[in-house]
């Protein structure tokens, strides 16, 4: 939390001015009772109306001054707090954008989103609170104490008795309440979790006839939340009545002892009235501070999460000395590449070596979890290899800029991701200066033209966030078109045809074959039938290459491959 607050540094001037303004404002407010006591002690006692009015005008002027100070302070505060939020948000977003998949997966998408949005908003609110209250309350507190001592030192002894009691009460309640507040948040999350699971799993729950079971689960979480909610609120309910009681009793004590002081001639009535008002202000400033204790733990949880993002640096950075891309195009080489996912016991890739050249199709096949997607991710340098080297166009990927490397590649992921915007914008994502003809051509090759033309607005029709208004197959075709429009040296298809029905699949492959004949193609596949004619088939098993060669060669030499084939094809299709 403190660490994040250091980011207020660029605003130091404003913060200083705010502090000064708030200081003057508090002083002005504390000065008002002083003048009032003059009115009472001099004006009223002597029956001097002119004096009363004159003092009154001074009070008005001071009040107006305090008002102006606060408005200026409030203006600066909004600038500082919202500016702080803006800067922090920018930093976090930039950092996340620089993450490789490794760091990204460590925290997780949903959590990263919360951190960039809600957590930062939370921080922004807290900064606002701090600027508005954290300065005001202590100044008011100290000022109040000084003024009351100055008014009457002996009477100020009441504070010595009352303040510790008040502090003790606040401490006790905050100490009791804080863990409960934390628990409350957790229990609320639990209710939300159970409810969300009930929503997402509705078919399964009904299919297994477990509605009652889920109801009970929800009820348990709900009850738990309710009970904690009642507890928290009941504890907090003590806070205010007790504080008010203490303050009021203190006031009574002031009047009582003050009365005796007046009787002894050590004090005047107006001073007593002013004194009461000082005490009120001291108490209220304490109460304000106690509220901060409730907000700060919440914010510090947010701050922790934000710090985690800012403290994590991407492991993949562009090299200091960049090797310029040469004339070679479309050559990929893996030299004894091994890779471990963080925390995993076994390597995801073990000692992978192969070469691919333009005009060739390399297929990668293997079981679930055998490392197919991981292998192609290495070409894009989504992750850093543990051992060995990946070379693209004879240059190690670590020696080029990520931009230069990825420029060469047209990547179609397993899960098609589209962005909000028109169809053509989505295709142009692959090449921002693509002409309309290029866009249409890419769509046609990807077998997307037909359904695009059926849509209202055609290429200008809008894809909703997450592509929820088109089908999975349509999404995949658009994501293929997006890669095609780049006209890259290397194509990577990571099992990108899974949502297509057979007919479309076949048509698409035919069209793709013509379009990609001069490029290097890497294709991750599940079905043998789709890759039988590849120039090179890599059979992955548990992260290492089990066999490499053409369909015919592998049928002869590779057991795993034969097994895959026999599970999919009938006898006559195998040859």
């Amino acid at each position, binding site marked *: 939390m403190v660490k994040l607050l250091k980011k207020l540094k660029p605003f130091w001037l404003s913060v200083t001015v705010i502090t000064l303004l708030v200081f003057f404002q508090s002083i002005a407010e504390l000065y008002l009772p002083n003048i009032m006591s003059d009115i009472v002690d001099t004006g009223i006692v002597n029956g001097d*109306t002119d004096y009363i009015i004159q003092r009154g005008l001074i009070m008005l002027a001071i009040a107006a001054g305090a008002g102006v100070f606060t408005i200026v302070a409030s203006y600066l505060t909004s600038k500082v707090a919202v500016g702080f939020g803006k800067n922090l948000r920018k930093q976090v977003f930039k950092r996340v954008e620089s993450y490789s998949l490794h760091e990204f997966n460590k925290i997780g998408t949903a959590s990263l989103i919360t951190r960039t949005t809600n957590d930062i908003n939370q921080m922004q609110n807290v900064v606002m609170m701090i600027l508005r209250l954290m300065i005001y309350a202590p100044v008011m507190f100290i000022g109040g104490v000084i003024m009351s001592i100055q008014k009457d030192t002996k009477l100020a002894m009441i504070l010595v008795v009352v303040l510790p009691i008040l502090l003790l009460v606040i401490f006790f309640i905050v100490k009791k309440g804080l863990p409960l507040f934390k628990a409350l948040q957790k229990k*609320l999350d639990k209710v939300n979790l159970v409810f969300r699971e009930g929503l997402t799993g509705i078919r399964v729950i009904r*299919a297994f006839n477990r509605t009652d079971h889920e109801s009970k689960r929800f009820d348990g979480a709900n009850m738990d939340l309710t009970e904690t909610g009642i507890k928290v609120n009941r504890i907090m309910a003590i806070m205010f009545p007790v504080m008010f009681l203490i303050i009021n009793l203190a006031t009574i004590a002031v009047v009582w002892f003050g009365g005796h002081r007046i009787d002894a001639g050590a004090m005047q009535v107006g001073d007593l009235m002013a004194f009461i008002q000082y005490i009120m202000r001291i108490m209220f400033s304490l109460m*304000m501070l106690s509220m901060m204790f409730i907000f700060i733990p*919440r914010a510090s949880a947010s701050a922790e999460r934000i710090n985690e993002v800012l403290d994590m640096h991407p492991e993949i950075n562009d090299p200091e000395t960049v090797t310029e891309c040469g004339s070679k195009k479309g050559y990929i080489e893996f030299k004894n590449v091994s890779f471990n996912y963080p925390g995993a016991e076994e390597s995801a890739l073990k000692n992978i070596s192969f070469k691919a050249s333009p005009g060739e199709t390399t297929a990668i096949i293997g079981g679930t979890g055998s490392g197919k997607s991981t292998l192609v991710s290495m070409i894009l340098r989504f992750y850093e290899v543990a051992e060995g080297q990946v070379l693209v166009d004879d240059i190690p990927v670590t020696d080029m800029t990520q931009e230069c490397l990825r420029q060469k590649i047209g990547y179609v992921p397993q899960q098609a991701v589209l962005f909000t915007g028109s169809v053509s914008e989505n295709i142009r994502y692959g090449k921002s200066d693509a002409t309309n003809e290029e866009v249409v051509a890419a769509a046609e090759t990807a077998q997307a033209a037909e359904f695009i033309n059926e849509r209202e607005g055609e290429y200008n029709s809008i894809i909703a966030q997450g592509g929820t208004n088109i089908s999975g197959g349509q999404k995949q075709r658009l994501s293929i078109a997006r890669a095609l429009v780049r006209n890259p040296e290397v194509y990577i298809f990571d099992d990108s045809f899974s949502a297509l029905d057979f007919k479309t699949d076949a048509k698409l492959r035919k069209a793709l074959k013509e379009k990609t004949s001069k490029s290097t193609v890497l294709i991750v596949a599940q079905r043998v039938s789709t890759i039988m004619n590849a120039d090179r088939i890599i059979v992955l098993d548990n992260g290492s290459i089990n066999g490499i060669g053409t369909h015919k060669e592998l049928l002869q030499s590779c057991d795993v491959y034969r097994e895959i084939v026999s599970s999919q094809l009938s006898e006559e299709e195998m040859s």
Partner: protein
Amino acid sequence: MKKNMNKNPNIKPGVSGKQDMKKIRKMVQAGEITREEARERFAKMQPSPEVAENDGKPMKGLGAPKKPQSGGMRMGPGMRGDVEKAKDFKGTLKRLIGYLKPFKLQLWLVLFLAILGTASSIVGPKILGKATTELFKGLMMRMQGVPGAVIDFEKIAVIMIWLVALYIISSIFTYLNQFVMAGVAQRTAYNMRTSLNDKLARLPLKFFDDKAHGDVLSRVTNDMDNIASTLQQSLVQLITSVVTMVGIIVMMLTISPLMTLITLITLPLSVLSTKMIATRSQKQFIKQQRTLGQLNGHVEEMYTGHRIVKAFGKEKDSIEEFEQINDELYDAGQKAQFISGIIMPVMSFINNIGYVVVTVAGGIMVTKGAIAIGDVQAFIQYSRQFTQPIAQTAQIANILQSTIASAERVFEVLDEKEEIPDNTNAVVLENPRGDVLVEHVEFGYRENDILMKDMNIDVKQGHTIAIVGPTGAGKTTLVNLLMRFYEVSKGKITVDGVDIRDMKRGDLRCIFGMVLQDTWLFNGTIHDNIAYGKEGATEEEIMKASKAAHADHFIRTLPDGYDTVLNEDASNISQGQKQLLTIARAILADPAVLILDEATSSVDTRTEAYIQHAMIEMMKVRTSFVIAHRLSTIRDADLILVMNEGDIIETGNHEELMNAKGFYADLYNSQFMGQEI
């Protein structure tokens, strides 16, 4: 669920689905839709519940103290952000109050306590003033040289004792009042949440297809939260504010009507300025909320598409757009915060004017002997306390508005049409065989949009039925009808000769075991997730099922084996592994009829072959429906139903269909044509 929706054949591209933010914004500008509608649409676009949780609202915690008397704490009514208006304020309010009915007694008690508590605290300053007056009187007399004049401390002591008693009583009442209200508020929220959850169990699947998850979820979380904290705090506050205002006026009038008039001079000023600033800040808050929505949308999209952003080297573009929205947000946010921040100083200035006026006028009146000095002191205190409830009621009015809007959204869900209730004389099949008969079934997801015109299937026990067809052909629809997730509009489906509408849904679904492409696992151990298939399953049965599903091996390689806890999105195991778990779950359930809907689409073919091998045993004695893309997995079916556009266009086994050279043969051959790239 989202996946399911996409698979749902009746969702046509471009027709349903959500509009994007920019478009909505344009629509608002063009006046096509109102702001309220836009906001609703934005709200629906909040897909991730995590994001929806705390949308920039101030931290309005349950029980967070909210009763500051001196300026500074409150951040202005606008802080709550966008204030929504309910469509039917009165009706919804009445209904909400209906939920409070079981707590009638407690509520009366709360009201009683609130009035007493506030009243006794209001009398305080007046009595204290008397003490001051007494002091002053003695003092003045002494100054004027009245012989034997002393301050009457005995009289003051009596006043003090009264005061102490009064304050203690007031504090106790205030505490009791909050204490009782905590129970009422939390339990009411509990009841509402429970009825929401119960309601969802009775809603047809159609409802879930039409509604975005985030939307429904946000009603349970955000809206319920809103209602709960309003019940907890604002309700009592409203009562005390009103009592305080009325009480103070009464007290002031009993002291001095003239001074009351003078004190109230500032009243219209504070009401007016509160209103003026509030409306202005509201506008800015709406703007801020909108930009915030835009920003959240962008962040969410860029993060979900991180891989793509990286692969296409678009980080710079993404950051550029982000900065642009971020700047806009800064502008709107800064203005909103500033304007709402003004409320406090303005109010305290007005307050101070009142203070000065009271002091001066009071002072003059005291010199004229029209009023006692203690009364002036009381007036000063009253005038300070008076502006507070005014601002508070203004704020509560806003809070109430948005609470009622929240309640309305909750009630909307509660008012949704429910499933047809189970037949009261339901038939129970003791030992179901699994003969399934579909007769002349007509069905459409939407009225006037019939998908299935005349479906007829006759399946005998032990048969394996494969359903084949292009995406959107109605394969999953058939499953939905068998499980009675949807109601047929014409015709009937029978199991062992009994119309499925004559059975309880629960009993019917126990006959079927279903494995879906959309794997659903919950936040719990792997063991519990498999055990979900059968209540009270033994350890042995679970192991056996997971072995049959070929899940045992991978489970054992996990650090905690069967006790490994799946995280919230079950993202700590792969999609293929998830499918294996769901298959194990279905195997454990040991149903009479097995439905596999793309159950192995993410499992590699080798593992799939193993599973199939294991399942052959199961499938021999059971009726099974298999939906698959891979034709290799359905070749051995007893009967293949080829579906297109909602109806069965071909039936037969593999050889028959191949020989017929129809749609199926076409499909099958296309799998092996021009496939290589």
